[in-house]
């Protein structure tokens, strides 16, 4: 794919996505958002964003909760026409039109968070058929002592809270919303967790990777404690956090194959990686002490009950 020199290229795991935008202000904002993920690799897929300024931020804000995205074979639209896109397979380009104020940070619409997974899965589909090189997990990941800990659970269970309790003191936040996980070195080695450009609530997002040490399923509670999860419980809970694969022009067989890959991935992950339920309060000293004790036990090869 030939790209204009001005296009910004953003790395999402193994996939490089070119983004061009006809609005200087929005382009600048996107560049700032994705600055840690700017890439000079050849683009696998492109997003061409045309910005329209029909609605003010004050007009968009009240309708945002009612905006629903409807995916079509080769694109998507929204019920209230705030943004839409059409994918051109020949040029591997997603042509998007979006209201300018959707990109206002204060509105937190984060529409590119909906677009980037679609683009990632589409590019993976072109390169590897239905097989994805890495799985997208709805999770927060923090690097401590050169290893990643994944904190995950349904929305509202505290992924961002954990990132905030981490701050700059207790580790390096990879991402508090979505990470990639894969076995690039084979299943005998620990899986690798990689940061993504997906926007979370906290500003920290790192474009780096680390071996996965353990996965903690979050539960806010009156005390801070850990409970080892059996494989079945871990499997049922992590399956809900693996991002459902959808891409443009997804063939029926591809969807089935991608779902199968989700189940295989979750099974292997729950076999190979220790899973715990982490109940926690907002007392960060207690929280990080509990996690430090867990890390020490795992280093010694002990599994906390």
């Amino acid at each position, binding site marked *: 794919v030939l790209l204009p020199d001005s296009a910004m290229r953003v790395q999402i795991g193994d996939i490089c996505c070119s983004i061009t935008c006809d609005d200087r202000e929005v382009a600048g904002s996107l560049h700032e958002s994705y600055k840690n993920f700017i890439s000079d690799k050849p683009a696998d897929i492109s997003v061409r964003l045309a910005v329209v300024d029909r609605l003010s931020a004050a007009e968009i804000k009240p309708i945002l909760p009612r905006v629903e995205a409807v995916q079509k074979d080769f694109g998507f639209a929204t019920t209230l026409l705030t943004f839409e896109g059409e994918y051109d397979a020949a040029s591997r380009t997603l042509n998007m039109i979006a209201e300018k104020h959707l990109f206002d940070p204060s509105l937190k619409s984060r529409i590119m968070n909906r677009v980037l997974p679609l683009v990632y899965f589409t590019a993976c589909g072109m390169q590897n058929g239905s097989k994805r090189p890495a799985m997208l997990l709805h999770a927060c990941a923090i690097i401590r002592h050169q290893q990643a800990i994944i904190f995950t659970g349904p929305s509202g269970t505290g992924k961002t809270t954990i990132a905030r309790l981490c701050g700059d003191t207790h580790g390096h936040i990879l991402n508090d919303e979505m990470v990639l996980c894969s076995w690039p070195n084979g299943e005998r080695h620990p899986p690798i967790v990689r940061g993504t450009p997906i926007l979370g609530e906290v500003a920290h997002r790192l474009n780096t990777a680390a071996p996965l040490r353990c996965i903690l399923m979050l539960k806010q509670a009156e005390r801070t404690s850990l409970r080892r999860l*059996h*494989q*079945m419980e871990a*499997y*049922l809970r992590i*399956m*809900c956090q693996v991002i*459902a694969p959808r891409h443009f022009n997804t063939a*029926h067989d591809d*969807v*089935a194959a991608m*779902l*199968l890959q*989700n*189940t*295989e991935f979750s*099974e292997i992950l*729950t076999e190979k990686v220790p899973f715990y339920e982490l109940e926690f309060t907002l007392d960060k000293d207690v929280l990080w002490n509990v996690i430090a004790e867990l890390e020490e036990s795992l280093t010694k090869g002990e599994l906390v009950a």
Partner: protein
Amino acid sequence: MTNQIAKVEDVIWRQIEDETVVLTADGLSLHVLNTTAAFIWELCDGTKGTEEIVSILCEHFDVVPEEAGSDVNDIIVKLEGLGLVKRI
């Protein structure tokens, strides 16, 4: 109602810690089957009807045909309702 029972196409199932977990074809729902349901699930291969499944169940478990028949019907109706099996 003598139709053969088959798993719905594209339903995915895995054995996790000796239990059977089934993912619906749309990927939206996971179901954990108990021992009897998992046994019946394995037999839903499109070649057997409920009577044959009842007969096999009686051979493997200490259960009378009336009780087994009731269990098989209940479970197949539930699996059908969940979109996991179909009568062909």
